[in-house]
């Protein structure tokens, strides 16, 4: 498919720049986490992350070159592939730290649950685009979307990966509500959800239960499950207004802060750059999310609106939950900070999602053929 020159004129530089800036800061931050370990690792993490960004950008080009309507048409196929990959993970996946999330794919470790988020957004967009309802969806119409989300949700929860599962649920609920539901359905969902809470509790792994209990009282077990969050709050708080300076965060450099390249990457940033740095980052994310909503709002058609909306919700919820958990207002559920946490699959999937948003954004003026 040839790209129309007019499309390039409409390229959304703002979105692209925002993502690059956030990823750049993230990269610098990852450099800091690996700083005191230099010499011990094979390839420094920030270089690896740079490779992932490059790879993500390449896929992003594909994702905005191909008309999103074509991708939209194959949404269910993509969804199917993602589910199959999740099953493969469950059967043959690699486990690290007790959870089986990865499969090897041509030398890369792929985390299909990340891919699943995008696939679910596309599938749900496809469904809601196909089945429109001006007076809101009833329960019967929501059975299919519910199945669409529950199959991967349960597979991911089994890994176990509570965080990603949670994001799937949030995407689902947000897209359902956004598309319009009848009040009765909302009530049913609410009732069902509440009824499922105790059941879900037993379904959770011990360590997940532990984490939730710890959330309510971190000092309950300061050397065990509470350690992460206490050290994280110390890191953030000790950063103060302007931080300890780049590469000077003691919590980070002396490794008191665990998981600092992944889930607790924001704490590193907050320790070294303080409230000022944190505010800048929050504003960047705010812009990104509002811009995403704007793209969704201005999309040429409903499928574009839904896809852009889904991706924006995904980014927003991850930002909110991640920062919420490292600052101690939400339980530690293990969700990476978009564009910031180290992780190949997450970065590639996010950049692919941004590619789709660019796609939708620049095709908003194209008239239908």
């Amino acid at each position, binding site marked *: 498919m040839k790209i129309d020159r007019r499309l390039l004129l409409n390229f959304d530089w703002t979105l692209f720049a925002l993502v690059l800036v956030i990823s750049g800061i993230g990269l610098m931050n990852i450099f800091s986490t690996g700083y005191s370990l230099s010499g011990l690792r094979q390839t420094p993490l920030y270089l690896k992350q740079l490779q992932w960004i490059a790879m993500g950008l390449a896929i992003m080009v594909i994702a905005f070159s191909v008309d999103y309507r074509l991708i939209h048409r194959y949404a269910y196929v993509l969804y199917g592939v993602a589910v199959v990959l999740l099953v493969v993970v469950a059967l043959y996946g690699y486990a690290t730290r007790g959870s089986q999330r990865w499969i090897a794919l041509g030398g890369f470790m792929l985390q299909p649950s990340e891919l699943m988020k995008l696939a679910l957004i596309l599938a749900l967009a496809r469904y809601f685009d196909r089945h429109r309802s*001006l007076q809101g969806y009833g329960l019967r119409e929501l059975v299919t979307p519910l199945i669409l989300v529950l199959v991967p949700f349960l597979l991911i929860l089994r890994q176990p990966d509570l965080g990603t599962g949670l994001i799937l649920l949030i995407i689902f609920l947000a897209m359902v509500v956004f598309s319009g539901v009848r009040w009765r359905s909302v009530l049913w969902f609410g009732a069902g959800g509440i009824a499922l809470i105790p059941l879900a509790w037993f379904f959770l792994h011990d360590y997940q239960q532990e984490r939730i209990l710890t959330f309510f009282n971190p000092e309950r077990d300061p*050397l065990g499950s509470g350690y992460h969050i206490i050290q994280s*709050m110390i890191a953030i708080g000790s950063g103060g207004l302007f931080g300890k300076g780049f590469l000077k965060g003691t919590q980070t450099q002396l490794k008191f802060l665990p998981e600092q390249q992944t889930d607790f990457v924001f704490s590193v940033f907050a320790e070294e750059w303080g409230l000022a740095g944190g505010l800048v980052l929050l504003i960047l994310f705010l812009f990104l999310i509002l811009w995403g909503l704007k793209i969704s*709002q201005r999309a040429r058609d409903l499928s574009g609106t839904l896809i852009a909306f889904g991706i924006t919700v995904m980014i927003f919820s991850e930002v*909110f939950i991640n920062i919420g958990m490292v600052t101690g207002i939400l339980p530690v559920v293990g969700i990476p900070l978009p564009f910031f946490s180290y992780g190949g699959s997450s970065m590639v999937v996010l950049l692919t999602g941004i590619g789709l948003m660019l796609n939708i954004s620049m095709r908003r003026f194209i008239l239908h053929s």
Partner: protein
Amino acid sequence: MSMNSNPLNSHEPGEFRQRFQTLFVVVFIALSILFVRMWYLQVIKGEELRQRSENNSVRMRKLPALRGLILDTNGMALVDNQTSFDLVFIPDRSRDIRETIDKFAALCRKRSLAFAPDVPPKGRQRTFQPVRLERNVAWEKLALAETHALELPGLITEVSPVRQYLAGEVMAHVIGYIGEIGPEELERNPAAYAMGDMVGKFGIEKYLDPYLRGTNGFEQVEVNAVGKGVRSLGRIDPVSGYNVVLNIDSYLQKTAWDAMAGRTGAVVVMDPRDGAVLAMLSTPSFDPNLFTGKVTLADWRKLADNRLRPMENRAASGQYPPGSTYKPVVAAAALEQKLITPETIVYCNGSFVMGNRTFRCWQKKGHGRVNLHRALVESCDVFFYEVGRRVGVDTLARYARELGLGAPTGVDLPREKAGLIPTREWKLKRFRQPWHPGETISIAIGQGYDLVTPIQLLNAYAALANGGTVWQPRLVKRIETQDGKPVKRFPPVRRSVASISAETLKQINRGLWGVVNEPRGTGYVLRRREADVSGKTGTSQVVGLPQDEKARRLKQAVAQGDHALFVCFAPDKAPEIAIAVIVEHGGHGGSAAAPVARRIIDAYFARKNAPPAPPRPVVATAVPAGTAAGSRPGTAPTPTATRPVVSPTDRPVAPRGANAHPEPNP
């Protein structure tokens, strides 16, 4: 078809537009919540959390001061400081000491190394005080701890100076040893000491601990999550302790040690002119190097349960009936009180009857007509029974005390015993019984209640030798800085001058000369060609001691025979060396104890009369300290531990080792 229209598009007014507006607000509020939370953590709680991050990462590390050395009178080092690699646990709220220890113990077991440290019980453990788990750790174990550092949070290796007692058993009782401070000592003096400090526990190490120990330095170190030091933020250098120079002469000490080989007892050698203690020995001894590491319970048991009590310094803490060595005191009292003259004759038929009791002379067939001189030379008991009876218990006690008996001599050692010189009043107080005249007879020959320590006895004889001055025995000559500048001198201290006339002393000393140099003298074995030694033998019967406990213990002693004593000084004209020897259960003083003294005297004069030998010139004592330092064989001014530390476990330990020590002396 329907794909072409977008019901949510903003161009179409209504519900959908509203949804977007709601969304904008939701996102804004959500991110604002995050911002407020960050504000709370970073601004409101910022200071508190900063403190906690510093507690996390900044640790005060003690830089142990290098302990001062202990040198003999010629400047020869008697102790040395070596380097010890220790395993230390750095406590932290997020770590469990037991878990780390168990993990490491498991690792050790796999390589069949022993690791079983005593861990302070939970309550007594101070949260932020490092716990020294093991000292002088074998390098295999150190390497193990280093390689598994990440799995052993809080366990670090540290370098500390460790005492090495070069003189070993020979000087154990004088020098003593150091050990980790106990909780009681810590509570008594919390300002001066910290947990984990090494303090003197015994001997000079204890007595002069404030001088020897120096002042610990501190270093603020940034540590990482596993307790490894990363960089130094600031330090206060430790100040090395002062060196202590003793009056002890290693040469005489060693001679005494060799002479006492296999015997139980004590030897003290002193300069009667000023009270300098030239040698002090108690046998059996112990190896103070046992205490430098963590002393094992088995080793401790072996020492503590030994019936021969090797941990006791008999020279200052052993109390013995003086036996016949007490007779010169009785003679002095009688002469001074004019109760006898040198010509007074007592007839000895081998026994003395007092009331309904008969007291025997050691010479069963009797000495016949005996005057003071013969009585001293042949140690006639009956003569002194009679003289003692005339003098009486209280007057005897007065003269004994004038010569320093029955009271601590003030020697610079902890735990000196007082001995006992009885009086009527004492007995009334102690036993609520009047004094029996018969008891005076016993004490007149140094038995009964009489108890003296070897150093007291020697001090009394030194007074007889020097014209009546009772000096305070001094082990320590001076305290000096590491580079030899004097800090404190210990000049002779005249405790008292006995009110005994020169004429009386002359009479007594003539007798003492006869003991050694007249054929019938009880110490004739000791005579030298120069005929320059004066002395007195003694045999102390070890029965009838007041304390039940002691009596029980000494019952065994009786079975093994009496204690042999010998006290002497030389040369007789102008005494410069005085010696007291006691051999427990050695039998007769002349045969068991005198030969020991003989060897010391021979050694003393052999060296004195020999042409000045290069290795250890006695001159060194007289010249200024700075010059003396040059004659020290490399050991004294530059302790070993200040040399660059060569770590067996390579990189991670060495820099810390360097930090743990002050700069080498200029």
